[in-house]
């Protein structure tokens, strides 16, 4: 009985983990290249979620088609914030960049609140379900996981096979050295920031297929914190590490929830969150390069 429940929850966790993974790749990319932690991360996911909602409600478009739109919006937002603020903060102390990205997050949240209001909204898409025996999955989650794996593979190929990807990798290794070898470092910074933001916005769309309660402008905070844990799990600054970190985190989260629910006197939801932050601290202390880190 409990085994079956655990298996079912773990499958759900794997699907959710895929989303966590994609949702964290942008954060890790930005940290890896610019050495900036985007504290406004969740707000960009929220923007993606609202793009999906808007497309679905006004044009009746399938959220899958909203992905290219979100990608373009993300690139635009990324460049906008890069050139107005982030560019001047790359070599500044952490305090400046942390506070600046937080302020950007607040700005986005308040703008969306100004337009849409702060109540929860939701949409219903695809009611079909797949029965896996131990658990029932809505088709939308299957699409979401497929989408996130595709995004992860595309990013991997872009990194390893294109000249732009090579330039980014060289800047991650050594920005001064890359500059000396003729890589336009400023351009790489701008592009990586824009790409990181747009990945995050896209992940917001995939995320809407998972949240039953709907979305509101302040939904992002939770995901910022989760993204930190996932990013640390996968090794801060490594985008594919983040993807696998996400999968692991999804499994752990759902597994722990099931186990904590068996212990009387505990609130399983809060204990799961507690556990995830303990994990964060332990990894930061014993293996700050992440579970898959080599160094």
């Amino acid at each position, binding site marked *: 009985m409990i085994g079956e429940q655990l298996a079912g929850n773990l499958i759900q966790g794997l699907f959710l983990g895929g989303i966590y993974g994609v949702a964290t790749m942008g954060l890790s990319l930005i*940290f890896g290249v610019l*050495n*900036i*932690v985007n*504290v406004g991360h969740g707000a960009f996911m929220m923007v993606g979620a609202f793009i999906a909602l808007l497309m679905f409600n006004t044009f009746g478009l399938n959220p899958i088609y909203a992905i290219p739109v979100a990608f373009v919006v993300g690139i635009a937002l990324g460049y906008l914030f890069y050139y*107005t*603020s982030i560019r*001047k*903060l790359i070599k*500044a*102390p*952490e*305090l*400046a960049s*942390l*506070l*600046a990205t*937080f*302020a*950007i997050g*607040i*700005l986005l*949240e*308040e*703008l969306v609140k*100004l337009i849409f209001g702060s109540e929860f909204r939701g949409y219903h898409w695809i009611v079909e379900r797949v029965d896996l025996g131990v658990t029932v999955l809505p088709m939308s989650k299957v699409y979401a996981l497929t989408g996130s794996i595709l995004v992860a593979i595309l990013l991997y190929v872009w990194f390893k096979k294109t000249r732009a990807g090579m330039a980014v990798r060289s800047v991650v290794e050594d920005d001064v050295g890359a500059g000396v070898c003729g890589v336009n470092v400023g351009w790489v910074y701008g592009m990586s920031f824009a790409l990181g933001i747009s990945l995050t916005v896209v992940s917001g769309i995939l995320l809407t297929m998972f949240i039953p309660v709907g979305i509101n402008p302040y939904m992002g*905070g939770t995901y910022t*914190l989760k993204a*930190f*844990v996932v990013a*640390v799990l996968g090794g*801060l600054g490594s985008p594919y590490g983040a993807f696998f970190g996400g999968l692991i985190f999804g499994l752990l989260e759902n597994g722990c929830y099931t186990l*904590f629910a068996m212990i009387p*006197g*505990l*609130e*399983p*939801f*809060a*204990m*799961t*969150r*507690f556990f995830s*932050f*303990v994990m*964060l*601290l332990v990894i*930061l*202390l014993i293996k*700050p390069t992440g579970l898959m880190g080599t160094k």
Partner: protein
Amino acid sequence: MSDRIAKYYPLIPVYSVYLALFLIGKNVPGMWQLIAMLAFYSAIGQAFNIFLGMTGYVDFGYVAFMGVGTYGMALSISHLYHVEWLGVWVVLIGFLLAAVMSTILSILVGAVALRLRGAYFAIATIGVNEGFRYLIEGARIWGGSEGIIFYGQLAQAVGRKTASILSTFWADIFVFVIAGVAAFITLFYMKGKIGYALTALREDEDAAKVMGIHVTKYKIIAFITSASLAGLIGASAWGLKVTNVFPPEVFEIHYTIECIIIVLLGGAGTLLGPVVGGLIYGLSKYWLTVIIPGFQLLIFAPIILIVIIAFPEGVIGVLARRYRGTPLGKFIA
């Protein structure tokens, strides 16, 4: 001898500001709440500045110390209210407990997180704050997510009239006192060996280490000082004043951000900075709440961005540089 006194001249403007605030609050009717808010922001800015401003480490989980302090007050009152001979002393025990608890937490956090640097430190401290909040909720410690409401117990311990004065007047006075103490400690550190060590560490930690400065020791001193002051402020401004405590409120990350903004606005690492920052932040927040309720943050966010990019030294940082060497410069630090 005169040098030793001249060292403390910069305290004059700080204490004058607090005195002026107190007099305005006491004599202008209807102003007390605003003044209390300003004192709170200045106090917390000063307490945070001792760590953030002097070391350059960004503690994103700073609010946890205020939260724990609030719990200290709440636990003292809700557990000891029936001990009759204690009377008003229960509040003093609350402050002591707040200081002890926030100190213990800061030692634990410091031992773990201060090994990390930069972004890793910031993320670790967020983790501590959130983790602590969910531990309280998840394991149902100290009332769990239902929190503790203790006005009734306070009234029973000290009498209804005293309880009312304690929470509407004395709680704010204690904040003033803590702010004054924080200012003194800041200056004491700044002008002493600790201050030089911390400046060296802030500018270049590795170089400071090589020069033989025991960086970990000084970081921990600044961290614990700052945290215990935060605990006292929490005990007073949230515990005694509000007389209830709920985990989602006292561990809300936005308060940490407010503290960072205050320190940065006024000038990180300066004595007068957090006071000025607290005043600017408190007044503009109050004013914006009155004219455009609900959308203060929409105005604030771009202002913060502009300040970070254009004036990273803050108001006092700029002033101190301009007036250095002049007679006025003695009072700005």
